[in-house]
């Protein structure tokens, strides 16, 4: 399966199934709320959906502006860095995408990210450390990876994943509080409710499962972006060399937070802090291996 077309469709299929399971999880937790907590439980569901939708979709719609502020990125013009604009322009021609806004983050750690609600509002940003530590081919690979996120609408995909995970987390959280503070009321009414300890287990596990699924979606989108980048440049060696530079480097981005971690080309968080199941990125060695396989494939 070492060609980019197969890798692209495999990752798209996996994203679809992961999002489907997240949808199932929402129905599951909503069912628990309605079946076990009576009328007050049922009213929690639309409330959680509304809160999650408003908070996530607000930040999705203004993602290009919000992220600029959170990461302290500065939008630059063509005259500020003609070579970088050349590289972005090349990838635009290869992908047929419109020219995005380009930004620089003043940070010695090499990293890059893409955001924006659609290709017409796309923004891609690079740290100064990345621009200084890579040659032309490597930079082209990174630019192609970021433009691949734009082409694959990954801001939208991660907003959908964040919304569903948010709904599950909110419902579980509110129900847990109800159990703690007012749970007794339901038992007075009688009815066929589960014993409390049985209701607690899914309330604890569901948000964890939702977080893991959200991370899995993010990992699949990273693999997909690598494959799409190769579809643009037909040069897996460039991106592979770039990832090797990132793997060798131990510095981490200063203005970092887990809120924007999933956007970067390499996770800005410490690898040891997150276990594999919660990681937003596939292990970098695995990505390098996949690109190496594409390099030896004559179809590329």
């Amino acid at each position, binding site marked *: 399966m070492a060609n980019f077309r197969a890798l692209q469709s495999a990752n798209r299929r996996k994203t679809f199934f992961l999002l489907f399971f997240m949808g199932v999880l929402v129905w599951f937790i909503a069912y628990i709320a309605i079946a076990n907590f009576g009328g007050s439980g049922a009213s929690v569901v639309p409330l959680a959906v509304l809160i999650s939708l408003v908070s996530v979709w607000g930040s999705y719609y203004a993602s290009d502006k919000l992220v600029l502020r959170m990461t302290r990125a500065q939008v630059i013009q063509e005259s500020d860095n003609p070579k970088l604009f050349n590289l972005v322009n*090349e990838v635009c021609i290869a992908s*047929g995408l419109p020219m995005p806004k380009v930004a620089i983050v003043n940070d010695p750690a090499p990293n890059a990210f893409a955001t924006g609600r659609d290709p017409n509002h796309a923004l891609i940003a690079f740290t100064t450390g990345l621009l200084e530590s890579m040659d032309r081919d490597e930079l*082209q690979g990174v630019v192609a990876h970021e433009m691949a996120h734009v082409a694959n609408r990954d801001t939208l995909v991660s907003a959908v994943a964040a919304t569903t995970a948010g709904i599950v987390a909110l419902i579980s959280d509110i129900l847990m509080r109800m159990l703690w503070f007012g749970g007794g009321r339901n038992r007075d009414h009688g009815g066929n409710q589960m014993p409390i300890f049985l209701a607690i287990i899914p309330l604890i596990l569901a948000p964890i499962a939702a977080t893991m699924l959200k991370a899995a979606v993010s990992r699949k989108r990273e693999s997909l972006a690598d494959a799409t980048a190769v579809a643009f440049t037909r040069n897996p060696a460039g991106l592979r060399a770039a990832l090797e530079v990132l793997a060798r480097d131990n510095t981490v981005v200063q203005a970092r937070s887990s809120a924007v971690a999933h956007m970067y080309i390499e996770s800005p968080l410490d690898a040891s802090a997150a276990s594999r199941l919660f990681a937003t990125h596939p292990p970098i060695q695995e990505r390098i291996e996949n690109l190496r396989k594409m390099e030896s494939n004559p179809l590329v």
Partner: protein
Amino acid sequence: MDASLLIIIAVALFVVYAIIQYNRLVRLNVQVDEAFSQIEVQLKRRADLIPNLVETVKGYASHEREALEKVVQARSASTTASTLPAIAAADGALTNALRGLLAVAEAYPDLKASSNFLQLQEELATTENKVSFSRQFYNETVRSLNTAVKTIPTSFFVGLAKVGAREFYEVDDPSARNVPNVKF
């Protein structure tokens, strides 16, 4: 519900379906045209860059007449080509001639260090990439169109939309197709 109403609904649904397929074919065909004009834009860019390059190389390596001549000839051939295979062939010849000239330039440290040449270097690298990416994008659009022309259901509407399979843009030099990245 009487039968005539059912027939009207069925016909209406079919018309909507036919319009969707027809539009898809026309859209794909327009995309191929757009992608081809992108190739022409990039070829023009490269042709405009060459006189400057030739002058710069002449200043330091005037006796490399053969390599210089090849580039100048290939450039003039590429500006007169009009059909797609002719444009592609001239494009491939110019790519090869440029590569030859830059290989010759390697032997002249003064030339390589000159500010003019250094400026041209990034310009040439990006132009060469843009040319090959626009070829590749064109071939991708042809691939989508030709697939639609040959597969059901769009293939049924090929005659109606007056759209047919299009030619790929093939450059003679196989390495030019596979490796768009040129190092100078």
